[in-house]
Protein backbone atom coordinates (compact mmCIF):
# COMPACT_ATOMS: atom_id res chain seq x y z
CA UNK A 1 0.00 0.00 0.00
CA UNK A 2 1.25 3.44 -0.89
CA UNK A 3 2.42 5.20 2.23
CA UNK A 4 1.08 8.56 1.12
CA UNK A 5 -2.47 7.37 0.87
CA UNK A 6 -2.32 6.35 4.50
CA UNK A 7 -1.84 9.96 5.48
CA UNK A 8 -5.27 11.23 6.37
CA UNK A 9 -6.49 14.43 4.80
CA UNK A 10 -6.41 16.10 8.18
CA UNK A 11 -2.81 15.04 8.73
CA UNK A 12 -1.81 16.20 5.29
CA UNK A 13 -3.42 19.54 5.87
CA UNK A 14 -1.70 19.84 9.20
CA UNK A 15 1.68 19.00 7.71
CA UNK A 16 1.12 21.50 4.91
CA UNK A 17 0.15 24.18 7.36
CA UNK A 18 3.19 23.44 9.48
CA UNK A 19 5.46 23.65 6.47
CA UNK A 20 3.89 26.92 5.42
CA UNK A 21 4.24 28.26 8.93
CA UNK A 22 7.94 27.48 8.93
CA UNK A 23 8.71 28.58 5.41
CA UNK A 24 6.56 31.59 4.70
CA UNK A 25 8.09 33.96 7.25
CA UNK A 26 11.53 33.08 5.91
CA UNK A 27 10.55 33.60 2.32
CA UNK A 28 8.78 36.82 3.12
CA UNK A 29 11.72 38.23 5.01
CA UNK A 30 14.90 37.67 3.07
CA UNK A 31 16.45 40.30 5.31
CA UNK A 32 16.29 37.89 8.17
CA UNK A 33 19.00 35.65 6.79
CA UNK A 34 21.17 38.69 6.36
CA UNK A 35 20.67 39.71 9.94
CA UNK A 36 23.40 37.55 11.32
CA UNK A 37 25.75 38.56 8.59
CA UNK A 38 25.27 42.08 9.86
CA UNK A 39 25.19 40.85 13.41
CA UNK A 40 28.71 39.61 13.05
CA UNK A 41 29.96 42.78 11.46
CA UNK A 42 31.27 45.01 14.20
CA UNK A 43 30.77 44.07 17.82
CA UNK A 44 30.44 40.44 16.84
CA UNK A 45 33.87 40.38 15.27
CA UNK A 46 35.43 42.30 18.11
CA UNK A 47 33.82 39.96 20.59
CA UNK A 48 34.46 36.72 18.82
CA UNK A 49 37.84 37.36 17.29
CA UNK A 50 39.39 35.11 19.89
CA UNK A 51 36.87 32.35 19.40
CA UNK A 52 36.39 29.98 16.56
CA UNK A 53 33.26 30.94 14.72
CA UNK A 54 32.63 28.08 12.36
CA UNK A 55 29.34 29.36 11.04
CA UNK A 56 26.77 32.06 11.45
CA UNK A 57 24.21 29.33 12.01
CA UNK A 58 26.11 28.30 15.12
CA UNK A 59 25.85 31.78 16.60
CA UNK A 60 22.18 31.99 15.67
CA UNK A 61 21.60 28.62 17.28
CA UNK A 62 23.37 29.67 20.47
CA UNK A 63 21.36 32.90 20.69
CA UNK A 64 18.11 30.98 20.09
CA UNK A 65 19.06 28.53 22.83
CA UNK A 66 19.57 31.43 25.26
CA UNK A 67 16.21 32.85 24.14
CA UNK A 68 14.53 29.52 24.99
CA UNK A 69 16.37 29.52 28.32
CA UNK A 70 14.98 33.03 28.87
CA UNK A 71 11.47 31.68 28.14
CA UNK A 72 11.92 29.26 31.04
CA UNK A 73 13.32 31.93 33.34
CA UNK A 74 10.34 34.17 32.56
CA UNK A 75 7.92 31.30 33.17
CA UNK A 76 9.61 30.78 36.52
CA UNK A 77 9.57 34.51 37.36
CA UNK A 78 5.91 34.87 36.39
CA UNK A 79 3.78 35.23 39.49
CA UNK A 80 0.10 34.47 38.73
CA UNK A 81 -0.94 36.74 41.61
CA UNK A 82 1.15 39.77 40.68
CA UNK A 83 -1.02 42.36 38.96
CA UNK A 84 0.15 44.89 36.42
CA UNK A 85 -0.31 48.46 37.68
CA UNK A 86 -3.57 50.18 36.74
CA UNK A 87 -3.99 53.88 36.03
CA UNK A 88 -6.62 56.61 36.30
CA UNK A 89 -8.59 57.52 33.17
CA UNK A 90 -6.74 60.85 32.97
CA UNK A 91 -3.52 58.98 32.15
CA UNK A 92 -4.87 57.20 29.04
CA UNK A 93 -2.67 57.88 26.01
CA UNK A 94 -4.70 59.77 23.40
CA UNK A 95 -4.69 58.89 20.62
CA UNK A 96 -3.64 55.36 21.47
CA UNK A 97 -1.04 54.34 18.85
CA UNK A 98 -1.89 51.90 16.06
CA UNK A 99 0.79 49.26 15.62
CA UNK A 100 0.96 46.23 13.32
CA UNK A 101 3.14 44.75 10.62
CA UNK A 102 0.95 46.57 8.07
CA UNK A 103 -0.48 50.08 7.70
CA UNK A 104 -3.70 51.04 9.45
CA UNK A 105 -5.67 51.11 6.18
CA UNK A 106 -4.74 47.45 5.62
CA UNK A 107 -6.26 46.32 8.92
CA UNK A 108 -8.74 43.51 8.23
CA UNK A 109 -12.43 44.31 8.01
CA UNK A 110 -14.27 41.64 9.92
CA UNK A 111 -18.05 41.44 9.59
CA UNK A 112 -19.38 41.26 13.13
CA UNK A 113 -22.72 39.71 12.16
CA UNK A 114 -21.38 36.47 10.73
CA UNK A 115 -18.28 36.40 12.91
CA UNK A 116 -17.73 33.12 14.74
CA UNK A 117 -14.93 32.54 17.22
CA UNK A 118 -13.64 29.03 16.67
CA UNK A 119 -12.52 26.98 19.64
CA UNK A 120 -10.32 23.92 19.19
CA UNK A 121 -7.83 21.58 20.81
CA UNK A 122 -8.05 20.33 24.36
CA UNK A 123 -11.45 21.77 25.23
CA UNK A 124 -14.69 20.04 26.18
CA UNK A 125 -17.03 22.32 24.20
CA UNK A 126 -15.94 23.24 20.68
CA UNK A 127 -19.02 25.16 19.68
CA UNK A 128 -18.10 28.41 17.94
CA UNK A 129 -19.03 31.69 19.63
CA UNK A 130 -21.04 34.54 18.17
CA UNK A 131 -20.08 38.07 19.15
CA UNK A 132 -23.40 38.55 20.96
CA UNK A 133 -22.74 35.47 23.10
CA UNK A 134 -19.35 36.81 24.13
CA UNK A 135 -20.86 40.20 24.97
CA UNK A 136 -23.46 38.46 27.12
CA UNK A 137 -20.75 37.02 29.41
CA UNK A 138 -19.71 38.92 32.57
CA UNK A 139 -17.45 41.81 31.54
CA UNK A 140 -14.36 43.27 33.22
CA UNK A 141 -12.39 46.42 32.50
CA UNK A 142 -8.83 47.60 32.96
CA UNK A 143 -6.69 50.69 32.36
CA UNK A 144 -3.20 49.31 31.94
CA UNK A 145 0.09 50.02 30.22
CA UNK A 146 0.75 48.42 26.86
CA UNK A 147 4.52 47.94 26.43
CA UNK A 148 5.90 47.41 22.94
CA UNK A 149 8.99 45.29 22.30
CA UNK A 150 10.42 48.41 20.63
CA UNK A 151 10.49 50.12 24.03
CA UNK A 152 7.63 52.62 23.85
CA UNK A 153 4.56 52.26 25.98
CA UNK A 154 1.02 53.64 26.05
CA UNK A 155 -1.83 53.44 28.55
CA UNK A 156 -5.19 52.24 27.30
CA UNK A 157 -8.58 51.10 28.54
CA UNK A 158 -9.88 47.70 27.53
CA UNK A 159 -13.06 45.86 28.44
CA UNK A 160 -14.16 42.30 27.86
CA UNK A 161 -14.39 38.78 29.19
CA UNK A 162 -11.83 37.46 31.67
CA UNK A 163 -9.99 34.87 29.65
CA UNK A 164 -9.91 32.46 32.62
CA UNK A 165 -13.75 32.65 32.74
CA UNK A 166 -13.91 31.92 29.03
CA UNK A 167 -11.51 28.98 29.33
CA UNK A 168 -13.66 27.60 32.16
CA UNK A 169 -16.82 27.94 30.03
CA UNK A 170 -15.37 26.02 27.10
CA UNK A 171 -14.03 23.36 29.48
CA UNK A 172 -10.40 23.96 28.53
CA UNK A 173 -7.83 21.55 29.88
CA UNK A 174 -5.88 24.04 31.98
CA UNK A 175 -3.09 21.53 32.50
CA UNK A 176 -2.22 21.97 28.82
CA UNK A 177 0.90 24.02 28.15
CA UNK A 178 -0.20 26.48 25.48
CA UNK A 179 -3.10 28.52 24.20
CA UNK A 180 -2.75 29.45 20.53
CA UNK A 181 -4.47 32.21 18.55
CA UNK A 182 -5.20 32.61 14.85
CA UNK A 183 -6.19 36.00 13.56
CA UNK A 184 -8.11 37.47 10.65
CA UNK A 185 -4.96 39.32 9.54
CA UNK A 186 -3.02 36.00 9.31
CA UNK A 187 -1.21 36.91 12.49
CA UNK A 188 -0.79 34.08 14.95
CA UNK A 189 0.76 33.71 18.36
CA UNK A 190 0.59 31.59 21.49
CA UNK A 191 0.92 32.00 25.23
CA UNK A 192 1.64 29.91 28.31
CA UNK A 193 -1.27 28.59 30.38
CA UNK A 194 -0.37 30.50 33.61
CA UNK A 195 -0.60 33.80 31.71
CA UNK A 196 -3.84 32.67 30.04
CA UNK A 197 -5.32 32.18 33.53
CA UNK A 198 -3.97 35.48 34.92
CA UNK A 199 -6.82 37.68 36.29
CA UNK A 200 -5.86 40.59 34.00
CA UNK A 201 -5.85 38.54 30.80
CA UNK A 202 -8.95 39.70 28.88
CA UNK A 203 -10.75 38.74 25.72
CA UNK A 204 -11.12 42.42 24.93
CA UNK A 205 -14.32 43.42 23.10
CA UNK A 206 -14.23 47.14 23.81
CA UNK A 207 -11.75 49.96 23.86
CA UNK A 208 -12.27 53.09 25.97
CA UNK A 209 -15.94 52.29 26.53
CA UNK A 210 -16.90 51.66 22.89
CA UNK A 211 -16.86 48.61 20.63
CA UNK A 212 -13.27 47.62 19.89
CA UNK A 213 -12.52 49.56 16.70
CA UNK A 214 -11.00 47.97 13.61
CA UNK A 215 -7.55 49.52 14.17
CA UNK A 216 -7.33 48.04 17.67
CA UNK A 217 -8.46 44.57 16.65
CA UNK A 218 -12.21 44.31 15.95
CA UNK A 219 -14.01 42.18 16.83
CA UNK A 220 -11.76 40.94 19.60
CA UNK A 221 -8.19 40.99 20.84
CA UNK A 222 -6.46 39.24 23.68
CA UNK A 223 -5.28 41.87 26.14
CA UNK A 224 -2.49 40.91 28.56
CA UNK A 225 -0.76 43.67 30.54
CA UNK A 226 1.75 41.02 31.65
CA UNK A 227 3.07 40.55 28.12
CA UNK A 228 4.61 42.73 25.41
CA UNK A 229 2.45 44.11 22.61
CA UNK A 230 3.26 41.47 19.98
CA UNK A 231 1.93 38.79 22.33
CA UNK A 232 -1.50 40.52 22.34
CA UNK A 233 -3.17 39.23 19.15
CA UNK A 234 -5.85 41.35 17.42
CA UNK A 235 -8.78 40.23 15.20
CA UNK A 236 -8.73 36.82 16.92
CA UNK A 237 -10.81 34.28 14.98
CA UNK A 238 -9.67 30.99 16.53
CA UNK A 239 -8.42 29.86 19.91
CA UNK A 240 -6.90 26.46 20.55
CA UNK A 241 -5.54 24.72 23.63
CA UNK A 242 -2.58 22.45 23.01
CA UNK A 243 0.57 20.81 24.35
CA UNK A 244 2.34 21.25 21.02
CA UNK A 245 4.36 24.47 20.77
CA UNK A 246 2.46 26.68 18.31
CA UNK A 247 5.06 29.49 17.90
CA UNK A 248 4.00 32.84 16.53
CA UNK A 249 4.38 35.28 13.64
CA UNK A 250 7.21 37.31 15.20
CA UNK A 251 8.38 34.56 17.53
CA UNK A 252 9.22 32.30 14.58
CA UNK A 253 11.46 35.06 13.25
CA UNK A 254 13.52 35.43 16.39
CA UNK A 255 11.47 37.41 18.88
CA UNK A 256 11.37 35.87 22.33
CA UNK A 257 8.39 33.54 22.75
CA UNK A 258 7.42 34.26 26.36
CA UNK A 259 7.59 38.04 25.82
CA UNK A 260 6.54 38.77 29.39
CA UNK A 261 6.75 42.03 31.24
Amino acid at each position, binding site marked *: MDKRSRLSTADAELALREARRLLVPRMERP*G*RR*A*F*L*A*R*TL*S*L*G*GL*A*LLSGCEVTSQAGVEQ*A*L*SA*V*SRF*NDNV*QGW*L*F*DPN*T*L*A*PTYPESMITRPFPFNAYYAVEDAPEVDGTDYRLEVAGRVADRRPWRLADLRALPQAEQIT*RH*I*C*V*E*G*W*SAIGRWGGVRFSDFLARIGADTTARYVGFKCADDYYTSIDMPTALHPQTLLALSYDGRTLPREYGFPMKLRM*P*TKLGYKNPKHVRAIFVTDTYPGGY*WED*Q*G*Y*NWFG*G*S
Partner: protein
Amino acid sequence: MSLTADRAIHTPATRPPPIHPAWVRAAHWLNAAAVLVMVASGWRIYNASPLFGFTFPEAVTLGGWLAGALQWHFAAMWLLAANGLVYLALNLATGRLFHRFLPLSPRGVLRDMAAALRGHLAHDDARRYNQVQRLAYLFAMFDIALLVVSGLVLWKSVQFGMLRELMGGYEAARRVHFVAMAVLVGFVALHLAMVALVPRTLRTMIVKS
Protein backbone atom coordinates in the same frame (compact mmCIF):
# COMPACT_ATOMS: atom_id res chain seq x y z
CA MET B 1 55.05 54.54 52.62
CA SER B 2 53.90 51.65 54.75
CA LEU B 3 53.09 48.24 53.38
CA THR B 4 49.76 47.99 51.65
CA ALA B 5 47.22 45.56 52.98
CA ASP B 6 47.79 43.38 49.92
CA ARG B 7 51.42 42.93 50.89
CA ALA B 8 50.54 42.30 54.48
CA ILE B 9 48.38 39.34 53.48
CA HIS B 10 51.15 37.86 51.41
CA THR B 11 54.07 38.49 53.80
CA PRO B 12 55.71 35.06 53.59
CA ALA B 13 55.85 35.13 49.79
CA THR B 14 59.21 35.95 48.32
CA ARG B 15 57.81 37.16 45.03
CA PRO B 16 55.49 40.17 45.10
CA PRO B 17 51.87 39.25 44.41
CA PRO B 18 50.41 40.24 41.05
CA ILE B 19 49.18 43.83 40.74
CA HIS B 20 45.73 42.44 40.04
CA PRO B 21 44.80 38.93 41.17
CA ALA B 22 43.79 36.56 38.36
CA TRP B 23 40.09 36.76 39.25
CA VAL B 24 40.15 40.55 38.88
CA ARG B 25 41.76 40.32 35.46
CA ALA B 26 39.30 37.64 34.31
CA ALA B 27 36.33 39.60 35.64
CA HIS B 28 37.61 42.78 33.99
CA TRP B 29 37.78 41.29 30.49
CA LEU B 30 34.52 39.36 30.82
CA ASN B 31 32.90 42.60 31.91
CA ALA B 32 34.46 44.49 29.01
CA ALA B 33 33.08 41.94 26.54
CA ALA B 34 29.64 42.01 28.17
CA VAL B 35 29.54 45.82 28.18
CA LEU B 36 30.59 45.96 24.52
CA VAL B 37 27.77 43.61 23.50
CA MET B 38 25.21 45.25 25.79
CA VAL B 39 25.98 48.76 24.54
CA ALA B 40 26.17 47.87 20.84
CA SER B 41 22.96 45.81 20.91
CA GLY B 42 21.31 48.35 23.22
CA TRP B 43 21.90 51.08 20.63
CA ARG B 44 20.10 48.97 18.02
CA ILE B 45 17.19 48.45 20.43
CA TYR B 46 17.12 52.20 21.15
CA ASN B 47 16.91 52.86 17.38
CA ALA B 48 13.64 50.90 17.17
CA SER B 49 11.94 53.62 19.20
CA PRO B 50 14.31 56.53 19.88
CA LEU B 51 13.72 58.28 23.19
CA PHE B 52 15.47 61.42 22.04
CA GLY B 53 15.83 63.18 18.71
CA PHE B 54 18.58 60.98 17.29
CA THR B 55 19.49 57.41 16.41
CA PHE B 56 22.81 55.57 16.55
CA PRO B 57 24.52 54.82 13.22
CA GLU B 58 23.60 51.23 12.39
CA ALA B 59 27.21 50.41 11.55
CA VAL B 60 28.16 50.66 15.23
CA THR B 61 25.22 48.60 16.44
CA LEU B 62 24.93 44.87 16.98
CA GLY B 63 22.13 42.51 15.94
CA GLY B 64 21.16 43.75 12.47
CA TRP B 65 17.50 44.19 13.37
CA LEU B 66 15.47 44.51 16.54
CA ALA B 67 15.00 40.78 17.18
CA GLY B 68 18.70 40.09 16.65
CA ALA B 69 19.73 42.95 18.92
CA LEU B 70 17.31 41.75 21.62
CA GLN B 71 18.76 38.23 21.40
CA TRP B 72 22.30 39.56 21.90
CA HIS B 73 21.15 41.90 24.69
CA PHE B 74 19.24 39.23 26.61
CA ALA B 75 22.13 36.76 26.24
CA ALA B 76 24.94 39.12 27.28
CA MET B 77 22.87 40.31 30.26
CA TRP B 78 23.57 36.97 31.95
CA LEU B 79 27.30 37.42 31.49
CA LEU B 80 27.17 41.02 32.74
CA ALA B 81 25.09 40.19 35.81
CA ALA B 82 26.77 36.88 36.76
CA ASN B 83 30.29 38.24 36.26
CA GLY B 84 29.38 41.39 38.17
CA LEU B 85 27.98 39.40 41.09
CA VAL B 86 31.05 37.13 41.28
CA TYR B 87 33.31 40.21 41.11
CA LEU B 88 31.45 41.99 43.91
CA ALA B 89 31.30 38.84 46.06
CA LEU B 90 35.06 38.21 45.74
CA ASN B 91 35.77 41.90 46.32
CA LEU B 92 33.83 41.73 49.56
CA ALA B 93 35.12 38.32 50.65
CA THR B 94 38.79 39.21 50.14
CA GLY B 95 38.40 42.65 51.63
CA ARG B 96 39.77 44.13 48.40
CA LEU B 97 36.78 46.45 48.12
CA PHE B 98 37.84 48.16 51.35
CA HIS B 99 41.60 48.31 51.07
CA ARG B 100 41.73 49.16 47.38
CA PHE B 101 38.88 51.63 47.09
CA LEU B 102 38.76 53.16 50.59
CA PRO B 103 39.30 55.55 52.22
CA LEU B 104 37.81 58.02 49.83
CA SER B 105 37.14 61.68 50.55
CA PRO B 106 35.96 64.64 48.46
CA ARG B 107 39.07 66.56 49.49
CA GLY B 108 41.31 63.68 48.42
CA VAL B 109 39.55 63.45 45.05
CA LEU B 110 40.00 67.19 44.44
CA ARG B 111 43.65 67.05 45.48
CA ASP B 112 44.44 64.09 43.20
CA MET B 113 42.37 65.56 40.39
CA ALA B 114 44.35 68.83 40.60
CA ALA B 115 47.62 66.92 40.72
CA ALA B 116 46.59 64.82 37.71
CA LEU B 117 45.68 67.89 35.66
CA ARG B 118 49.08 69.46 36.45
CA GLY B 119 50.72 66.19 35.47
CA HIS B 120 52.11 65.71 38.97
CA LEU B 121 50.26 62.54 39.90
CA ALA B 122 52.71 59.69 40.50
CA HIS B 123 51.89 56.16 39.35
CA ASP B 124 54.90 54.47 40.95
CA ASP B 125 52.79 51.99 42.95
CA ALA B 126 50.19 50.38 40.69
CA ARG B 127 48.76 48.57 43.71
CA ARG B 128 47.50 51.82 45.11
CA TYR B 129 44.67 53.60 43.37
CA ASN B 130 44.64 57.37 43.69
CA GLN B 131 41.47 59.04 44.91
CA VAL B 132 40.21 59.84 41.40
CA GLN B 133 40.65 56.21 40.35
CA ARG B 134 38.85 54.98 43.46
CA LEU B 135 35.94 57.27 42.78
CA ALA B 136 35.84 56.37 39.07
CA TYR B 137 35.94 52.60 39.64
CA LEU B 138 33.41 52.68 42.47
CA PHE B 139 31.21 54.82 40.27
CA ALA B 140 31.52 52.33 37.40
CA MET B 141 30.40 49.54 39.76
CA PHE B 142 27.45 51.60 40.94
CA ASP B 143 26.52 52.61 37.38
CA ILE B 144 26.56 49.02 36.11
CA ALA B 145 24.42 48.00 39.09
CA LEU B 146 21.99 50.79 38.14
CA LEU B 147 21.98 49.55 34.53
CA VAL B 148 21.14 46.05 35.75
CA VAL B 149 18.35 47.26 38.05
CA SER B 150 16.78 49.62 35.48
CA GLY B 151 17.23 46.88 32.86
CA LEU B 152 15.34 44.42 35.05
CA VAL B 153 12.49 46.94 35.23
CA LEU B 154 12.41 47.30 31.42
CA TRP B 155 12.55 43.52 30.98
CA LYS B 156 9.98 42.60 33.64
CA SER B 157 8.21 45.74 34.80
CA VAL B 158 5.20 43.83 36.16
CA GLN B 159 7.12 41.09 37.98
CA PHE B 160 9.64 43.48 39.57
CA GLY B 161 7.07 45.92 40.90
CA MET B 162 9.21 47.23 43.73
CA LEU B 163 12.16 47.97 41.48
CA ARG B 164 9.73 49.62 39.01
CA GLU B 165 8.46 51.99 41.69
CA LEU B 166 12.05 52.61 42.81
CA MET B 167 12.87 53.74 39.26
CA GLY B 168 9.74 55.89 39.12
CA GLY B 169 7.81 53.68 36.70
CA TYR B 170 8.47 51.99 33.35
CA GLU B 171 8.99 55.15 31.29
CA ALA B 172 11.32 56.66 33.91
CA ALA B 173 13.30 53.40 33.94
CA ARG B 174 13.90 53.79 30.17
CA ARG B 175 15.48 57.18 30.82
CA VAL B 176 17.51 55.93 33.79
CA HIS B 177 18.75 53.02 31.64
CA PHE B 178 19.75 55.38 28.82
CA VAL B 179 21.52 57.93 31.04
CA ALA B 180 23.36 55.17 32.95
CA MET B 181 24.50 53.77 29.58
CA ALA B 182 25.68 57.18 28.38
CA VAL B 183 27.63 57.75 31.60
CA LEU B 184 29.21 54.28 31.36
CA VAL B 185 30.28 54.97 27.77
CA GLY B 186 31.81 58.24 29.04
CA PHE B 187 33.65 56.30 31.74
CA VAL B 188 34.99 53.82 29.17
CA ALA B 189 36.22 56.67 26.95
CA LEU B 190 38.04 58.30 29.86
CA HIS B 191 39.34 54.93 31.07
CA LEU B 192 40.78 54.14 27.61
CA ALA B 193 42.38 57.60 27.42
CA MET B 194 44.04 57.01 30.80
CA VAL B 195 45.30 53.60 29.72
CA ALA B 196 46.76 55.25 26.60
CA LEU B 197 48.58 57.73 28.87
CA VAL B 198 49.92 55.02 31.21
CA PRO B 199 50.21 51.98 28.91
CA ARG B 200 51.77 49.63 31.48
CA THR B 201 48.40 49.52 33.26
CA LEU B 202 47.09 47.55 30.28
CA ARG B 203 49.84 44.97 30.77
CA THR B 204 49.04 44.59 34.48
CA MET B 205 45.41 43.86 33.62
CA ILE B 206 46.52 41.02 31.33
CA VAL B 207 49.55 39.31 32.87
CA LYS B 208 50.67 38.54 36.38
CA SER B 209 53.14 41.37 36.90
